[in-house]
């Protein structure tokens, strides 16, 4: 942070009501307090990093319109990308850009991410604290989904956190609408069609009736 933000003593002085007119000793004490406050404020301002000090902040502003501030989407269909593993993020950008993971929304934007620097952007989102979806699922749907999820834990883990080493994403706290839609795409083999690494997953998805996807999605979105 090279910029100095000035918090002048006059500005802080304005906080003291002029009409009060305190005796001399109080005046001195107040002046000292003001000087101390000004020093603290100046130090604080100098140390506090503004968002623009991270060059990646300006690279991700387009993303926020759909994926929320810092990637913490609050909507049902746009996934939370805050805290997403960087390697998984980069794989998805690659797949979107080539059309392997077809998405009319994400194909152009994936190319923009590549233009701006996928290393910067994946690193930025990986470093953001993930806030689970604020959308609350029906407890009955969550309970039904928990039963169905017994088959998913081998890969996605007991708590739905995934396994970064195997590029398996965490599902916990993702919005339910997004999760349910991805299940449909996997089952129909329209997401990354023909990918051998996903063959077993898709075979499993084909054994689950479509009607159970919303329950499964409700369960994973409820995990913390």
């Amino acid at each position, binding site marked *: 942070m090279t910029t100095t933000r*000035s918090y002048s003593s006059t500005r802080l002085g304005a906080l003291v009501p002029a009409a009060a007119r305190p005796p001399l000793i109080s005046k001195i004490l107040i002046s000292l307090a003001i000087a101390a406050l000004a020093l603290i404020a100046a130090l604080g301002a100098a140390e506090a990093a503004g968002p623009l000090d991270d060059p990646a902040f300006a690279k991700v502003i*387009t993303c926020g*319109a759909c994926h929320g*501030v810092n990637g913490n989407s*609050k909507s049902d269909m746009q996934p939370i990308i805050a805290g997403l593993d960087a390697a998984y993020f980069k794989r998805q950008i690659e797949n979107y850009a080539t059309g392997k993971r077809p998405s009319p*929304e994400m194909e*152009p934007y994936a190319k*923009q991410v590549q233009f701006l620097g996928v290393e910067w952007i994946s690193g930025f989102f990986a470093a953001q604290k993930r806030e689970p979806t604020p959308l609350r699922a029906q407890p009955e749907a969550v309970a039904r989904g928990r039963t169905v999820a017994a088959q998913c834990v081998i890969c996605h883990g007991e708590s739905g956190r995934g396994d970064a080493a195997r590029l398996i994403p965490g599902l916990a706290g993702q919005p339910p609408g997004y999760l349910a*839609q991805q299940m449909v795409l996997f089952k129909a083999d329209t997401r990354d069609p023909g990918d051998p690494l996903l063959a077993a997953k898709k075979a499993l998805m084909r054994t689950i009736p479509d009607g159970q996807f919303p329950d499964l999605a409700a369960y994973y979105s409820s995990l913390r």
Partner: protein
Amino acid sequence: MKGVTRRRFLRSSSVGLGLGLAGGLAGCAASMKGDFAPKSGRRVVVIGGGWGGATAARYVRMADPSIEVYLIEPNKEFVSCPFSNLVLSGLRTIESLTQPYDGLRRRGVKFIHESVTAIEPDTRRVRVGEGYLAYDRLVVSPGIDFQWEQIEGLPAAKDSVLHAWKAGPQTVELARQIQAMPDGGNFVLTVPPVAYRCPPGPYERICQVAWYLKANKPKSKVIVLDANQNIVSKTALFRAAWQAYPNIDYRASNKVTGIDTSTREVRTDFDKVKYDVLNLIPPQRAGAIAVQADLAGADKRWCEVDHVTYESVKQKGIHVVGDATIGLPVPKSGNVANNMGKAAALSIVSLLNGQAVPIMPPGNTCYSWVSDREAIAVVNAYKIENGKVVQIEQKLTPAQSASVAQRAEGWRQSIWADMLS
């Protein structure tokens, strides 16, 4: 250059001795008297609290809370143009598209619910009512205004002929008129020549009204008089959607030239068309304040800007964002205005802090509802090359679907939060 000299003079005066200060500013006494909120630190003033302006105000405060931000907007609440066509079909209420500015207030944005009457670039002030507000950088996000004079008879009839192209009371009134129209009545919609706000907007509106009439007034028709040679945006997808609406009578290259409200007729070069309910969307230009402040080009329509910072090419220190701009290969959409607001805000913060301005190309995600449950979309991503915005790619949804409509709903929630929270 005159302005710079004067600014320098003012700056040196204000740090000078009391005597010099009083002498130096004596000539400006009248305007100083109207300085209703004297500037104590760095200040950004934003004119217009729509998609571009609200976003700009929010992002300046996010990027550097030590910068004071004033947002000047006559309306007390934000009303979304995107999704407002669904009010015409009765699928949404205008209340559901109305949001308070509380989130921006919580971020420390100071509101003045008035109209700016003038911009003074030389002294870096805007005039509001009888007073003045000083700025270090100004964001002008004025939206659009209408060229009433382009259509004969319209200037006299502009208070009764509805455009409903700024979401609000006109949207509600047009919905009421459509609902009150007798079965068998003709709804006439006129599309202005490009460039205008929201290229796919008229065609989405046609879908929504046609959907409503098909279900509720099966003998009624939607007659479209389009000044353009073809559907301007998402052409094939709209054509496909209209297969479901035989009540649409679409007439391309039919530019409206006149209106007669006494006979309830609009005129084109070819004929006269009778209407029962009329939605005349007039030709457009940048919001009046931008034209008045000499931010628009020689044609007095749109404002040319730097593609990185959105600073006006005509006035230093003034950044223009949103539908009022021209020269970038982007549509006049809410999503683009949102992106421009961010890029202008972060450019301003960088400039005020003496930092390099980052490269922030825009993007456009644009959904259109073609029925009560299905939508289509177009997406454009851009890069910046040699200081100019260049499109990387445009992609359309392969077909209309309920899934796209669900994503449209998610986009609405996310981008509203990105402007207003």
